[in-house]
């Protein structure tokens, strides 16, 4: 069956395969957001630490990771480690690792900027009550930074979701690679990649929706 130039039957045939890939894309996204946020929080705290060495290590991390394309990092993790140290990561492990390390660097910058955007008087008021700097961070600074972080973090999460398409080059079968594989069989780039694109669009839109909801909820619970 055709509707204008669109071969509906073909679309119906490839969609389940692409959706299966999309599930893997979601899994990769969630995992790398999770680990990336943990890495990001630690690196951010390192960067603002009063211990110079930690600050330098944190700065080095974000400098290197943000300065090298994710694609190159993935090649190093997947092919490079195998060649040099005989460490053959599975495509999935390499994908999650690479995405988390990379996402962590950007998230660290977001968290650092968020923490430093909080008025210095807040830290001083907390310290003057007798709090340790860790307590002040946990009770006063981070809860305030948290809501300012949501919008840029949302952007970063969406970027991360789109970046998962890069792991198709290390043979990780997610949405993009499912499309590529289908195309090597059918040679129908337009239908296949357009569908892939639309599925990404649906997923990112849904993501944005969730983040907007979170922001609204937060605004209400904080009384302004």
């Amino acid at each position: 069956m055709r509707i204008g130039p669109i071969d509906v039957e073909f679309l119906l045939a490839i969609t389940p395969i692409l959706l299966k890939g999309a599930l893997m894309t979601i899994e990769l996204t969630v995992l790398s957001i999770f680990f990336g946020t943990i890495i990001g929080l630690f690196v951010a705290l390192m960067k603002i630490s009063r211990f110079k060495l930690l600050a330098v290590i944190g700065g080095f991390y974000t400098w290197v990771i943000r300065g090298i394309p994710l694609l190159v990092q993935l090649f190093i993790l997947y092919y490079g480690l195998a060649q040099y140290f005989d460490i053959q990561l599975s495509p999935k492990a390499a994908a999650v690792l690479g995405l988390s390390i990379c996402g962590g660097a950007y998230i660290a910058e977001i968290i650092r900027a968020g923490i430093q955007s909080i008025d210095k008087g807040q830290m001083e008021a907390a310290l003057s009550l007798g709090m340790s700097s860790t307590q002040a961070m946990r009770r006063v600074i981070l809860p305030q930074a948290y809501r300012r972080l949501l919008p840029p973090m949302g952007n970063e999460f969406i970027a991360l979701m789109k970046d998962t398409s890069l792991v198709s080059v290390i043979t990780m079968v997610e949405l993009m690679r499912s499309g590529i594989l289908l195309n090597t069989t059918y040679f129908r780039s337009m239908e296949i990649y357009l569908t892939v694109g639309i599925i990404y669009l649906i997923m990112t839109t849904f993501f944005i929706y969730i983040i907007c909801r979170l922001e609204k909820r937060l605004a209400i619970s904080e009384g302004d």
Partner: protein
Amino acid sequence: MIVIEHINKHFGKLHVLKDVSLTVARGEVVVIIGPSGSGKSTLLRCLNYLETIDDGYITIEGQPIGKIKLPDGRLVDDSRKNVYRLRSRMGMVFQRFNLFPHQTVLQNVMEGPITVSKTPVTEAKDRSLALLAKVGLADKADAYPVQLSGGQQQRVAIARALAMQPRVMLFDEPTSALDPELVGEVLEVIKDLVREGMTMIVVTHEMGFAREVADRVIFMNDGRILEDASPQAIFTNPSHTRTREFLSKIL
């Protein structure tokens, strides 16, 4: 109770506190006045160890701040824990209130007792409500700071500092950020503390207040204490021309 001996403080090349010495007895109310940039805030911040001093020393009830004296007389950095404990005994009130905006008024006041002193919640709550009543804000316990006027916010900030049961209160221009009609309510709360015999150091430009409550008035200029005298002496017969110039500008 507070002894400051020959302290110096630099910010980079800027010499902000120059050989400052000051003693404050228990129950005494000391008001610090002086032009902008003369180092008044820095002095209070050094007392609270929010800034470190380059040399000299400060003791509170005999305990050096941030330093401990070894048997051989040398001073070494104190543990952070002791610094935290000393800070918790000094209440600090800031020009810009610095209430925690993500917490209600009551939570702000309870924060210190709960997080720092590990006071049980019910006890902290009772005590905090009593303090809020004392500053006249019992009905605002569940409001957020943004919903309050500046004067109300500053009264909450005072209650928050009092919740730690401090031995000393440090006020850094507590009314400078307020609309004129809100200044009075905050000064009233501070005067209540004076009547209770609280030891305090108040940086302020409110000369009427200084005249009324101060046991001593300190005039700071360019990082130095130029004058340390009774309010009468300072306001009627200052010994430095610099003090006279400053007072004539501000009165």
